[in-house]
């Protein structure tokens, strides 16, 4: 057995180190390390509760709107206020824009460049992949980055700026949209649709979201241009459906609530395919292998105190568990819990894996583009966007939301008008969790086992695919 270290593991958001035990050319055991700690939970303690709207988004520059919404959700409970319906819609538009921008960034900038690597030079498809996706030099980035910047102009209208906006308040959003601005939002949404239909899918979005079986997807792919079909072809050539199997249990907190309920339902999906209600009171965080002092398992009661010298610890990330189980979160989980037909069928066929995670993200991107159009239409311009906030009560409060990478929760305890405790469980904390007290490995640690490294060792490109298929955000993970 040999032990190898992979790091710095780049083209993820933030810092990551992976240690692998290799037996007969395959990963036998993986340890995932988040090597950065900043201490947001400690920084928030003792502050006025509303300061969370300034501090918490700055956990992450790639999902700051999600962080804002989680904080605003917890504060809304603490204040006992409602949100203006327009504020809900404007929040959804901005949130969906951020999540769609994340999916674009992940696909074009973080994930696809691995197919352009020298390791694949002998493959028949390599020339086209290299022309299109080589990191910083491929032709795709020249189209994807301007499309992303244009999409983020939604933030200029609704949120002032991105990342790190203060527009998302417990009572709604701070910018009442006027007619001219709605027209601009329409134009931005139309240009996003244009990019997706021209470049990513080479088809109408309506056709993409209607794909409902693996056979339909295969037929749709054949002979089609566009980067999604390009991915599907490479994924089949490399059997990416056999790579990076997740632990089975999938979770979503539900997302984009409006007067009709949630655009994506909340729940858990077991490996037998059954979807059940989310037992959010059974979420725990274990610190047995994190450089943290022992504390309550309950995020509503726990505190974060670093202990850099702790024996057996190997990450700044704690180990979140649902009813004692490691759980995979992200677009695949969100779509599965929501019962999306294609994703449900793909999961039934071959479970959670590298290929299905990417498919779920791109299908979701098409769905979000359509939802954004609908929410813009639904805005009632003469009505308020923000209701008055009251004072915060003392007590324990929770804000649960879906960031692009999966379920994000903020647990806020207020006492005498100050933040007494603040605990954050981020999506990548779930996916990249270290072992727990029972020695159970986290989802990525499980997904890496069995990955072939052959003679390439730490340079094996399969490891890169597995890790990046989760679209990890390490700055969120340990925060």
């Amino acid at each position, binding site marked *: 057995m040999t032990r190898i270290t992979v790091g710095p593991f780049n083209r*993820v958001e933030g*810092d990551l180190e992976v240690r692998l035990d290799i037996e007969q050319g395959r990963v036998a055991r993986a340890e995932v390390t988040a090597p950065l700690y900043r201490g947001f939970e400690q920084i*928030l303690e003792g502050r006025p509760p*509303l300061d969370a709207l300034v501090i918490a988004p*700055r956990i992450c520059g790639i999902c700051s709107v999600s962080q804002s919404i989680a904080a605003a959700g917890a504060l809304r409970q603490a204040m006992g206020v409602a949100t203006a319906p327009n504020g809900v819609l404007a929040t959804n538009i901005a949130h969906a824009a951020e999540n769609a921008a994340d999916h674009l960034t992940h696909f074009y900038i973080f994930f696809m460049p691995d197919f352009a690597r020298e390791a694949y030079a002998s493959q028949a498809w390599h020339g086209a992949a290299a022309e299109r996706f080589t990191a910083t030099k491929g032709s795709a980035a020249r189209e994807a980055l301007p499309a992303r*910047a244009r999409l983020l102009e939604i933030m200029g*209208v609704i949120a002032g700026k991105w990342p790190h906006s203060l*527009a998302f308040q417990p009572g709604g*959003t701070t910018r009442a949209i*006027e007619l001219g601005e709605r027209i601009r939002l329409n134009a931005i949404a139309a240009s996003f649709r244009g990019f997706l239909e021209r470049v990513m899918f080479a088809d109408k979005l309506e056709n993409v979201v209607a794909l409902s079986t693996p056979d339909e997807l295969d037929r749709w792919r054949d002979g089609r241009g566009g980067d999604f079909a390009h991915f599907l072809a490479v994924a089949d050539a490399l059997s990416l459906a056999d790579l990076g199997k997740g632990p089975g249990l999938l979770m979503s907190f539900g997302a984009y609530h409006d007067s009709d309920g949630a655009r994506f339902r909340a729940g858990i999906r077991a490996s037998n395919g059954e979807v059940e209600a989310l037992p959010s009171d059974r979420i725990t965080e274990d610190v047995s292998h994190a450089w943290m002092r022992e504390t309550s398992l309950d995020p509503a009661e726990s505190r974060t105190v670093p202990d850099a010298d702790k024996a057996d610890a190997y990450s700044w990330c704690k180990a979140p568990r649902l009813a004692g189980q490691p759980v995979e979160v992200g677009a695949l989980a969100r779509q599965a819990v929501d019962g999306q037909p294609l994703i449900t069928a793909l999961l039934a066929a071959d479970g959670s894996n590298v290929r299905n995670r990417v498919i779920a993200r791109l299908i979701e991107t098409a769905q979000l583009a359509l939802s954004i159009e609908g929410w813009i239409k639904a805005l009632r311009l003469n009505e308020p966007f923000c209701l008055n906030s009251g004072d915060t009560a003392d007590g324990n409060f929770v804000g649960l939301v879906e960031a692009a990478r999966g379920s994000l929760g903020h647990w806020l305890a207020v006492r005498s008008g100050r933040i007494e405790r603040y605990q954050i469980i981020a999506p990548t904390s779930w996916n990249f969790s270290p072992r727990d007290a029972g020695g159970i490995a986290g989802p990525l640690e499980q997904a890496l086992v069995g990955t072939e490294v052959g003679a390439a060792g730490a340079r094996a490109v399969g490891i890169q695919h597995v890790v990046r298929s989760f679209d990890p955000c390490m700055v969120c993970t340990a925060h």
Partner: protein
Amino acid sequence: MDGSGTMTRMLWLQGASCGGCTMSILESGASGWFDELRQSGIDLVWHPSVSEQTGDEVVDLLEAIRDGRERLDLLVLEGSVARGPGLTGRFNMLAGTNRSIYHWLLDLAPLADYVVAVGSCAAYGGIPAAGVNPTDAVGLQFEGSDVGGALGASFRSKRGLPVINVAGCAPHPGWMMESLLALTNGDLTARELDGFGRPTFIANHLAHHGCSRNEFYEFKASAETMSERGCLMEHLGCRATQAVGDCNQRSWNGGGSCTKGGYACIACTSPGFESAQNYLQTAKLAGIPVGLPTDMPKAWFVALAALSKSATPRRVRVNATADHVVVPPSRSGDKRSS
């Protein structure tokens, strides 16, 4: 950069960051940031978020720079320098190297022609330095508003410049790109930096300049709650009259800004902004905001405010506390306005 017409070699590292500065600069350039860099003669030798090289390929590159085998023109840091615990830097190890970012920076910074801190974290410590500062986070050459930081007050890069601080949380993509380009052109000298190391083409302006609420400010017609249209200074915490930046003179994300978005400037370009509290409420003493424009005698400000308040047109007064325009501008003689 060395006059021989070769590309400028830029290494971008992330310390204790949120990645937001990178997310912001990725919005730069009509055909994308990568094209813009190439067209500007900048070779991005490595950037953790976007480069292909990973693992030992990167370690090899960093060692080659450290050992003087590869040239380094621009060293860019995003994120604070976490020196803790106990100056070991272990709160922020550079993965795969068994060495902290803090110590890597001590090695690499003296080798670069120019060292650039992007964002208020790398410049002054930023949010990680807030509260109890759990990780002993500092900026490259400042600790809050005190000069020093990770590299020390006397640090100068190979071309004799202190660290260039492109402050902001997150900074505007234009601030970052224009600063990098000004350096590669040789246009940014020590004279073009203010006392906190910020390029003066940004720092010679106040965030308040060009705010769409300036008319409300003139008449001290103030918003009272979030989403109202009036000036945000009197009640809702706006510090833009004390914060540098041309935030309201250029557009963010195609047309926005903090105050256009309906919320206060929290002075994110200022050292120590992370230590403020109650950001969206104006701190007052005897009913008068504590944070008044710094270059104006307080008594004058109070007198002028009282005067202008008494002269506020109805349109401005009414609209200040509404979320939509209630009274539009009108001209006397406008036949259709009555």
